[in-house]
């Protein structure tokens, strides 16, 4: 949930005067799309993205010879000429939630992470966010996902968790999502077990409804015909 545990800490950075040929090589070699630019004191001064790099490159429609000549010239330029100056940053104290909302609003692919003195501590990209989502869902470990439709009233989640706990099953995660049905909620417990028959039977006995993706989809379509489009 915290940026400092999810960010990439092994930093690959460039200096303002790094040649674009080196910038390009670093991106390919490490399979990354963002390079923070730091000055001699280690302070963050900018960021070069693969998109900045691409717009600096000559058109791929040029003939081979013209392209290569132009490319050679481009590659002698420096990082500071194409970098985004004063990029949006996040703090080491931020949460993944902050980052998610900010990334969605600002439409950027990665944030440099800085401490209160402006020193670069890490970088967090959409890929890191995806990994943290997989981590939160617990799907790195073997398990079974239950799809439960519960009435929207107090204590329903407790009942589910109690049944799972009484069966001595560990929970990888529990996601709750709204359904189209106003007075129902979908609960998705991820159980870290193969042994789900008894737990399912007990949920059914407790008047919960188990549903599958087809039911979910058809239910939604019948209430929201635009989904078919």
């Amino acid at each position, binding site marked *: 949930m915290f940026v400092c545990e999810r960010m990439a800490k092994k930093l690959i950075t460039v200096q303002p005067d790094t040649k674009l040929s080196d910038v390009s090589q670093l991106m390919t070699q490490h399979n990354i799309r963002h390079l923070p630019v730091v000055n001699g004191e280690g302070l963050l001064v900018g960021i070069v993205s693969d998109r900045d790099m691409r717009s600096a490159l000559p058109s791929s429609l040029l003939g081979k010879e013209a392209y290569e000549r132009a490319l050679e010239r481009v590659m002698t330029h420096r990082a500071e000429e194409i970098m985004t100056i004063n990029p949006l940053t996040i703090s080491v104290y931020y949460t993944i939630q902050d980052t998610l909302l900010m990334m969605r609003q600002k439409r950027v692919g990665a944030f440099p992470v800085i401490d209160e003195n402006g020193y670069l501590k890490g970088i967090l990209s959409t890929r890191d966010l995806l990994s943290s989502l997989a981590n939160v869902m617990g*799907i790195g*470990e*073997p*398990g*079974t*996902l239950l*799809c439960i439709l519960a009435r929207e009233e107090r204590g329903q989640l407790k009942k589910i968790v109690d049944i799972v706990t009484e069966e*001595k099953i560990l929970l990888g995660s529990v996601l709750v999502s709204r359904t189209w049905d106003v007075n129902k909620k979908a609960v998705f417990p991820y159980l*870290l*077990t*193969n*042994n*789900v*028959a*008894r737990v*399912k*039977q007990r949920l059914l006995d407790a008047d919960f409804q*188990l549903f*599958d*993706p*087809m*039911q979910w989809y058809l239910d939604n379509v019948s209430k929201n015909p635009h989904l078919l489009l």
Partner: protein
Amino acid sequence: MAGDMKKTGFVYDERFLQHVTFSTHPESPGRLRVIVEGLAASGLLQKLIPIEVRRADQRWIEMVHNIRYMMRLEEACIMGMPDIDHQDNSICRDTYDIAFLAVGGVLNAIDAVMTGDIDNAFCAVRPPGHHAEVDRAMGFCYFNNVAIGAKYLKKRWGVQRIGIIDFDVHHGNGTQHIFEQDPTVFYYSIHEHPSFAYPGTGREFETGIGEGLGYTLNSPILPGRGDDEYKKMIMQDLVPAFKKFQPEVILLSAGFDAHVTDLMSGTNLSTEGYDFITEVILNLANKFAGGRVISVLEGGYNYPVLALLVENHIRMMTGVR
């Protein structure tokens, strides 16, 4: 027609019941009891050729499993631990020895098929195997019976193309991982979609690694789907893949837990749906593998349904409807 009757071997040993799991565990000795009782009551059992069960030579198991894992399992059993690696993997003092017998039963069935003494075989063994990884127990499985069988076919019998079909409702992660880099063993699995079902692997984009690329194939089935989807995927994925691969022998990880009545899964395969799967597999085996099929029990947890499905499966293997 009598001429179509196949010699079908049957692997079973009462000692398989000595692998005792905790009292409410779904993978229980009762599973084998209902299978054998059902076969006896229907008269089918008497038509099968009993295959003796031996303790597998450790070197065959070592071809798949890490020796340190084997020692851990042995020690956990001797110490009287309740489980190994996860509480799902319930053990007793005899589990280690019984797991050796299960492997040995499968290897004996393979020998009998390869010498031509029998045409095909069903192995009613416990514990099951397809989740077992090289170095850990998973999903009620300790030694990967089918994977060891495939290695044995290669090493002992020089078979060059082995086809494994896994129709247990759960993906056989162990078997896939053991062979995903091996182009001589084709692993096909059809199972409930990994977003919903244990163990969470077996998506359609898992198709093998390196030299083994193209020799792993997965058909995930969404919960709520049944016969139609199974038939579609079997015809669209399995049949062309095996036509191309032309296996010399087919090993089955036969799980009967995809049935609509089995609460261990969310898929809705019917009894007839299971017959369809068996029929397609036997046709493939007759066409490419000289009919050589060794079917090994994996899951299936609804007792009466399990007994019925196994009986139907074996009856079709004998060629008598």
